[in-house]
């Protein structure tokens, strides 16, 4: 058995990240308010194609997706490809795994390359909280569908007869979990309380996120990762002068009905954002044939899910399970990581996950480990800022993190003269999460 697995591993090729591109993320209702998902995803892909010099190329696959999706966007990624500079003979497909959508597209494209199905592909995602689909109410929808099926005038009248004035009020999308009715923020407030995460720690994570992102912009880190879009050249949620003191003045917005202090504010929670990202992943051969320099290898990824409906586990705690499983499979520990990226859905999500890994009780009872996973060295955490500063257009976040991390790994490997490894963790609605390991090449 071991032999078969080893052989299987050996026959796999390496999938490498060679380039990344995104449009600046913009707060919802702002700069990108009139851009559709398709506009933004096309812009992200086109920017990537231009940067990599692969205009007119037929790629093996493009995987993308959006969390908030119009029904007309059934083939969103394929439509974006058709509108892009890629060869129209490039196939494309959509994936949806809530906020982990981007991570899952990277994983899927990498795996296709690793098993030899394709040579090169793009993984990406997009979301618009501004151009969100507004659905008609359930009553109106059913009446309209019945009307469509109706053949006689009597049947048509009957279909409309049951309509009530309230049915004309549209249903806007919410961040509520369908099974619990609680918003993501309220779910996280429960986890925050459970882990006793302090307000100050959360504000510290938020301030660092803004400061790190601003510093990365200042040193030109994003020059070959971001393409301006609609007059915006930087993520407009970023506040370079953010400090713990300033953040401490904000009023809490989540967990106000819980006993104990409410600590989650608009400052330490991610805002609704519009944006898109795309990552070019190829085989090593394809990269060299196209004179592209690999930045990092996509080593492996692991998805996890938790039972949050019963309250047995926090909604956004799945990465706490995915990461230890992934590390174990790769024979690695937290201490082997040179960079750690934990998606900042909320500052307290990052802190609760890290607290779980430090907890002997959690690691024993929930993960079945004899020792805690370990402590995250804060100097390795989200070094170029994360979602609290950049914003979080749900499906676009995975591509943002993978591209930035791959570039940082390559730079550090070159500077330090030794290979560098990074861990990425992204939580998602539905109690899901995806972890990934990247390594410099």
């Amino acid at each position: 058995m071991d032999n078969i697995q080893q052989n299987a591993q050996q026959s796999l090729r390496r999938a490498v990240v060679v380039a990344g591109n995104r449009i600046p993320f913009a707060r919802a209702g702002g700069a990108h308010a009139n851009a559709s998902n398709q506009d933004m995803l096309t812009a992200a892909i086109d920017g990537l194609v231009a940067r990599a010099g692969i205009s007119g190329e037929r790629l093996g696959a493009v995987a993308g997706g959006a969390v908030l999706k119009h029904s007309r966007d059934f083939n969103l990624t394929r439509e974006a490809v058709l509108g892009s500079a890629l060869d129209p003979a490039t196939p494309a497909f959509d994936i949806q795994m809530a906020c982990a959508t981007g991570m899952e597209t990277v994983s899927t494209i990498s795996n296709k390359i690793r098993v030899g199905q394709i040579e090169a592909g793009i993984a990406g995602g997009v979301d618009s909280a501004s151009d969100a689909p507004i659905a008609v109410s359930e009553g109106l929808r059913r009446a309209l569908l019945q009307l469509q099926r109706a053949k006689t005038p009597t049947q048509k009248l009957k279909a409309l007869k049951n309509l009530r004035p309230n049915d004309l009020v549209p249903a806007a999308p919410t961040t509520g979990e369908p099974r619990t009715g609680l918003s993501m923020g309220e779910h996280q407030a429960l986890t925050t309380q459970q882990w006793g995460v302090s307000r100050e720690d959360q504000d510290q994570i938020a301030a660092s996120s803004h400061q790190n992102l601003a510093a990365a912009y200042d040193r030109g880190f994003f020059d070959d990762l971001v393409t301006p879009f609609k007059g915006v050249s930087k993520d407009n949620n970023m506040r370079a002068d953010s400090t713990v003191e300033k953040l401490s003045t904000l009023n809490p917005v989540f967990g106000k009905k819980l006993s104990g202090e409410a600590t989650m504010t608009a400052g330490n929670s991610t805002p609704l954002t519009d944006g898109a990202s795309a990552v070019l992943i190829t085989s090593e051969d394809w990269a060299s044939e196209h004179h592209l320099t690999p930045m990092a290898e996509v080593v492996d990824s692991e998805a996890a899910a938790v039972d949050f409906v019963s309250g047995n586990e926090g909604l956004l705690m799945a990465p706490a399970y995915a990461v230890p499983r992934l590390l174990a499979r790769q024979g690695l520990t937290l201490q082997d990581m040179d960079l750690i990226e934990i998606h900042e859905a909320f500052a307290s999500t990052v802190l609760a996950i890290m607290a779980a890994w430090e907890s002997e009780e959690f690691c024993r009872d929930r993960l079945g480990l004899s020792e805690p996973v370990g402590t995250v060295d804060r100097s390795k955490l989200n070094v170029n800022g994360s979602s609290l500063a950049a914003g979080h257009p749900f499906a676009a976040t995975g591509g943002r993190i993978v591209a930035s991390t791959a570039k940082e790994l390559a730079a550090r490997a070159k500077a330090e003269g030794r290979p560098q490894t990074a861990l990425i963790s992204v939580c998602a609605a539905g109690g899901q999460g995806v972890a990934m390991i990247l390594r410099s090449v």
Partner: protein
Amino acid sequence: MTRSAEQLPTVPENYEQVQPAAKPNLGLLYATAGASAAGGFASDAAARALPALRKSPLGKVLPASLLNRGGDRLRAALEVPKIAHVVEGLTVDAEWHEKFCRVVHATPRPLVPGSSETAVFSGALHSLAFPVAMSVLTRQDFPLPVMGMVHLTNSVQHVMNVAVGEELTATAWTENLRTHRAGTVVDAVVTLTRNDGTVVWAGRSGYLAKGQTAAIAGEGARTSEEEWTDSSLTVPFNAPQQTAQWSLKADTGREYAGVSGDYNPIHLSGPSAKALGMKGAIAHGMYTASRALAATGVPSEVPFSWSVEFAAPVLLPATVAVSVHDDGRREHWNGSRVIAWNPKRNKPHLELVVKPL
């Protein structure tokens, strides 16, 4: 743990079983009871809010007990009619059942795994049986005023699954009249039986007639403080860990009325509820009970009992905090408990306990 058939409620021996002349119609029953409220005792506001009811010809044939609500005390000794109403040929309509399930967020399940037939949700069976119970409660010889009665408790034995479309007989009666610190409590009992006589479902609802105190005839009279003691809904209320939230819109009562047929004005709108002494429209107790039941992990093929105790009413619109706890899952399921409360005022709304039969 198995419960023998003896513990299912049966019509007391000295009761007469009668078939009501027509199938009970809730709309008419409420018109009857509502008109009595408007005409008999309620404020001018009630009369203004319920002109249609007041003018209703049904008001002229009101039960004397409903009209005579001027006094706080009923003078004569109370006695429930020794009558059971039997209605045959009831069926659950497929389209209605789907609607009902949508409204209370229940997932329709197959009769048995792999079956093409759909099992009727237990809360929907209550709605099927409810008009028959109401027909007894609104009888002329029923001694308590129905309008304004408070639904205190509800317990159901779901003995076996019923298929959508299956023919059932409902038998309803009242019994167990007893005093309560806030008035008088009576049980309305309904059983649903198959044509072969098997009882598939039995429900017992405890209703409180507030402020109605009187001597109770017979030996069965007793006080019912026990309904308030053996529960998690203690004062002060200790909220459990929240697992879910219900965001109930102002039209929740109208929506549930639409599928349950329970058009009690206290659920329909602010003015109609205020006319009957409520602060505003309140959610149906059985709506919240059905939503709570639908949120549990009770396996579809297991016979079970569920009982709900209602505390503070849910004033609409409302944000209700909910805690759903399942003891085990699937074949290891050993019971469920749901508590719903008002998180702002830390006041409990209901507690539902589900157990295998």
